[in-house]
């Protein structure tokens, strides 16, 4: 089946089985590999992407569901000229990324929070990120980074 959607601002079309996982279409068909697989059952959040601005686990989404939709992956967070999204920049300065395998999912989930919640509290940040597992950081620096990124954005 021919499936067309917007990926990080550009139009793409793929021939795929309608029930193929969006994650596989992104990684294997389109070779956009920033989105990671950690568990394949929607628990770890490493494959978090935005579909029309909502964070979802790409391992649980049949690609047919994104027909005509806008999909954003970690590769689409920075501005086209390369300027990092505030949450990407804050992850760098706060040490939000260690091994980095969960990082794309966290960044996408945090970007969604940033888009919808202007001044979240630390508990709200924790809640928004509770669908993403990290084993390196203990989450402290991730929460620090997201809180700072939101402050930066609000002040910008």
């Amino acid at each position, binding site marked *: 089946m021919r499936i067309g959607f917007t990926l990080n601002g550009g139009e793409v079309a793929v021939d795929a089985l309608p029930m193929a996982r969006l994650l596989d279409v992104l*990684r*294997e068909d389109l*070779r*956009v*590999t*920033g*989105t*990671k*697989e*950690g*568990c*394949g*059952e929607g*628990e*770890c959040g*490493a494959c978090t992407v935005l579909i029309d601005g909502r964070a979802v686990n790409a391992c649980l989404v049949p690609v047919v569901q994104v027909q005509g939709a806008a999909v954003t*992956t*970690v*590769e689409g*967070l*920075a501005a086209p000229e390369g300027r*990092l999204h505030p949450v*990407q920049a804050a*992850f*760098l*300065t*706060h*040490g*939000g*990324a*260690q*091994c*980095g*395998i*969960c*990082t*794309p999912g966290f*960044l996408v989930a945090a970007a969604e929070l940033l888009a919808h919640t202007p001044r979240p*509290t*630390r*508990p709200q*940040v*924790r*809640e928004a*990120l*509770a*669908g*993403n*597992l*990290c*084993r*390196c*950081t*203990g*989450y*402290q*620096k*991730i*929460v620090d980074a997201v809180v700072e990124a939101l402050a930066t954005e609000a002040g910008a």
Partner: protein
Amino acid sequence: MLIGQDLIRADGPAKVTGQARYVDDVRPDGCLYGFTVRSPWAHARIDGIELDPDFDWTDITVCTAADIPGENVVALMTDDQPVLADGVVRHVAEPVALVAGPDRDRALAASHHVRVAYTPLTPLMDPEVSAGNAHRIFRDDNVYSRITVEHGEAERVLAETDTVITGTYRVGLQEQLYIEPQGMMAIPRADGGVTLFGSMQCPYYIVKALKRVLGHDDLNVVQAVTGGGFGGKEEYPSIVAAHAAVLALKAGRPVKLIYRRDDDLRATTKRHPAIMHYRVAVDRATGKLQAAHVKLLFDGGAYNTLSPVVNSRAVLHALGPYACPHVKVEGLMVATNTPPNGAFRGFGAPQVMFAAERHMDRIARELGRSPLELRRLNLYQDGDVTPSGQRLVDVGATQVLELALKEAEAGLPASGVPDRAGGGGAAARVAPGRGVAIAWHGCGFTGNGEAALKGQADVAIEGDRVVIYTASTDIGQGTDTIFPAIVAEVLGISVDRVANADHDTATVPDSGPTVASRTAMVVGGVVKQAAEKLLAALQAEVGAEGAFDDLLAQRKSAAPLRVRAQYRDDLGLVWDPATYRGDAYPTYGWACVIVDVDVDLDTGEVLYRRLVSATDVGKALNPVLCTGQLEGGALQGLGYATCEEVVLDDQGGMRNNRLTNYIIPTALDAPEMVTALVEIPFSGGPFGAKGIGEIPHDVPAAAVAQAIEAACGAVLDRLPMTPERVLAALQES
């Protein structure tokens, strides 16, 4: 000064933009996908392996033990573990055959059509009856390791002292749970050799193992960006690499072997479970420890892996950071027909320090003293002697305790912690409690292991850049950021002119494995030495002295200038591995963890409010990276404390081998953390740095147990302290 600065991690930009290439992100032309056929039985005879004649095998490669070109052995400490089972399986999920196909689905489908005929045999599953059992798994007695550390006359003093307190403590398996599963790719080279590329901690372990499997040494191993290890990618990747290589050589094409999470959880190594008996004599009047006899029993599983070294670290840490004049510690590591256990952050220390700290709480309880007071009375001080006879210097135990207590006096962060009243809302009956636990952790290898290993590092001038060549991998902890900072500091140049070469064994020397909290402290020191040597070599070449850049400008040759340094044994450590006497470690880290919890009295659930830690790190080379590791380790310790439980079926297979039911803490489960540092410099480490990778995991669980007891009186001597166990203990209290 670059040292002590929060330099942004070198791999950070690639990691936050999705450009970092992990093994599964790379797909060479013609790449096949592999899958492993595993034993469903704990112990069975293999009667035959057949391919289903009704399945289309045309694009599938199948390998069994017969296809291994060299020896069927995973070379590590001993040669007991086969690459593929041959005639017999000794644990559930043991690899029996391999398949590779053009895509993952074909490979998976093919794996279901490899028919292995088994005759199940009676397995030995209980470590308490393993040693000397007629059912032989390992050598003639099922004992991987038996170590006794003895100082003074423990038995005599125990017999003569009125107050002797005994306790038994148990800990279960724990999974490392790196978020990137195990993965390796084998690529046959045009010159007849083979390249291994994948997720790993120790490239040279794989070289050593594959030489035997392939029967030649025409191979190189390249680390991909690695999504966490925690010890789980210390030795296990040798098996994945061997499998990928055997498939790739038979297929004549690249083969990628990426574990599915369920497969990874069922098959790969875990933290050793343990049963630990403590018998301690104490002076009731002074509260001082008089003598201790500790017996440790660890289950190593069906193959030896690195279990003897885990036992070694366990016996050496078994008393915790407390002075005791008469000590006998006996550690026993045995075989069972369960999946082999292996390296995991702390390497035996978290198990024994849970027991040691719980036993201190038991002594305090029986003496009617506060747990904190008892600790203060017995904490190591400068000049105290450890059970192996090592006289301690620069002891930071009291300093980390007092700093953590001070930090804990400050209130919760202004923004507070999540209101997790979901378990009953306003009606919930909740009891708050605080626990304080203290750890010591020997940094680096035991004794003079480094002198025997002679880890190497190269530093080279290439154009106007300086390149570092080491086999020390960055698995998230920040090695690739720390080493350039060390070199730039020595040479007095900007850090962005210093790069790490790929960790490719074709070009890097053997720096030793990335394990044992040794990378920054030991290999960092070798890198520093190499940078100093490079400066000297440049001075010699130019025939002048001066700043690095001035000398570089005078250089006539454009050829790379490369020097090698090797670990120098300047410390004069005296260690006898036969008697376990002497300087067990070059230095020790010290840490105090204070945990505030709420215990839900109706559900037994433990909610973490805050975790304060203070750790002696020698010197924080990069504070953000340093505290980041400490926080991550602390949360892994909290997972060990209350939620991470490996549930086994009757064959020893992991029943909860999914992330839906093997539960690690989320951002909502994690407490807010305050991470304080103490810097007591270690003369043997670069700029005073000590190893910090493992110590944060050592005592969070003990602190939680004490906090639960303080909150509600429930006494728990077993990990994990699940809600069910907390409720049961509450009913007994």
